[in-house]
């Protein structure tokens, strides 16, 4: 307990670090995932921009990256991280790896939610003279917004989970805090404080996502 008190500054710092990593990743990976997901959907057969070669390449790409366990993925993309963000370790590198992995994961969630949009409303927009990109931005995405928000909430929770591994390349956050100060120093109380913090973050995020989705879906 005394030890906990000593670690309080480090604990809050870790909380903020986790939130920072997850938020930035959700921003970058979320937009990337939305773009790839929409591309997966519209290039399907019979889609707004049906294009078999692009569709096949996208699917292979997504299917290639998605099954890689994240802890291996971090190491595998480290050279790429050095190239893109200039460093292979620390929070910047972990955000890079996490965003990349998240984009591919999110793309499938986005695609699934777009598939559930009634093709009739898309046809209606086209019949009114809406162009393809306009239809995507003003009909397709708004019509799927409720489920998309729930999907992104799910992703947020998954990112909190994945970010806990940041320690392997010197990243921070609650996962690293729990391993370094709790597990390795035989201090279960510290570990459990991190666990509780994570549970609280996840609960709050899920609650917020549910409320938002319910407001969008009006039910």
């Amino acid at each position, binding site marked *: 307990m005394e030890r906990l008190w000593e670690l309080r500054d480090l604990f809050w710092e870790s909380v903020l670090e986790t939130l920072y990593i997850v938020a930035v990743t959700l921003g970058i990976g979320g937009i990337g995932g939305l773009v790839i997901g929409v591309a997966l959907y519209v290039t399907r057969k019979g889609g707004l921009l049906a294009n078999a070669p692009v569709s096949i390449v996208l699917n292979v790409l997504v299917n290639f990256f998605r099954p890689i366990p994240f802890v291996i993925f971090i190491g595998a993309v480290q050279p790429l991280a050095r190239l893109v963000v200039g460093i292979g370790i620390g929070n910047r590198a972990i955000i890079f790896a996490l965003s990349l992995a998240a984009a591919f994961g999110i793309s499938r969630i986005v695609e699934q939610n777009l598939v559930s949009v009634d093709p009739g409303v898309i*046809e209606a*927009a086209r*019949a*009114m*003279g*809406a162009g393809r990109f306009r239809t995507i931005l003003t*009909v397709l995405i708004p*019509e799927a917004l409720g489920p998309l928000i729930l999907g992104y909430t799910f992703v947020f929770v998954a990112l909190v989970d994945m970010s806990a591994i940041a320690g392997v390349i010197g990243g921070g956050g609650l996962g690293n805090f729990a391993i370094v100060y709790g597990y390795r120093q035989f201090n279960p109380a510290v570990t459990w404080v991190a666990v509780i913090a994570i549970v609280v973050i996840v609960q709050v995020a899920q609650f917020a996502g549910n409320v938002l989705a319910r407001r969008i879906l009006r039910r």
Partner: protein
Amino acid sequence: MAIIELDNVSKVFPPAHRGAAPVSAVEDVTLHVEAGEIAGIIGYSGAGKSTLVRLVNALEKATSGTVTVDGTTVTGLSERRLREVRLGIGMIFQQFNLFSSRTVWGNIAYPLQIAQVPKSQHQKRISELLHFVGLADKAHSYPEQLSGGQKQRVGIARALATSPKVLLADEATSALDPETTRDVLQLLKKVNVELGITTVVITHELEVVRAIADRVVVMERGRVVEDGAAFDVFARPRHPTTKRFVGTLIDGVPTGATLESLRANHTGRLVTLSFDDESLPQSQAFAELISGGIEFELVHGGMEDIQGRSFGNLTLALRGEDAAIDHALGRLRERVAVTEAA
């Protein structure tokens, strides 16, 4: 003047999967719809009528032939130019296809945004449209809060927002109950009469065509098998498919089980007189029978009114001397179609 011209139009869909045959949905259709008329295109499901109507606004691209709408040839037009053409063609759908993420107001505003109508004019135009379709109090409702009939009214208001010259209705009443169907059809008639909008109605229900169409086009297996003024098609159907459709709504010459049952319940010779507005009036036909001393009763059939013109098949059971009946029928035959049950 024809506002929609389809000339030798065909649409072939690529095979659904490897090894399957390509599907020919529309085959060599030539159809001119006159400005201001309501054309009813009727056919069983799979006849190609939904594809045909989508060729008009190029939601489907014709494989061959030309489609011209209001003087603009739609076939081969670029996507950008198509958008302009589509602003002049409204469309409504069986499942309404309203945007669930937008209110009634937002749904009607959408085509105005596409047409780049200044926002300052939206208020006036949208409330005008809502009054026209009778939904002024529903502006801020979401589609799921509306009944089927109300949804289709919103669909109609949305389709009319950019003041199109042509309205395409794809099975617009097929998801509605009979009473709501009548209301929506009346509204479509109002659109045609008050706004002068040329309307193409796609349906598999002859009732719909009878209620509002000036012109009837019958489709089967991608082809137009009959095309004529509504009255002519109803009164004198020529193609077997047309006869089948008309037969579901209008009693013809009794055959089969109907005839058996009439025979069992009535004595005398069963004769069907087919009246239309060019034939002998009913009163004179009946006078002829009476003056011949022939007793008769009406056992089957009825009169129909299509666009203010009446026609119908009346089956009578005639009792009297055979010679007198033959003589009377001989005289009637000169002025009205007479069919005697064998």
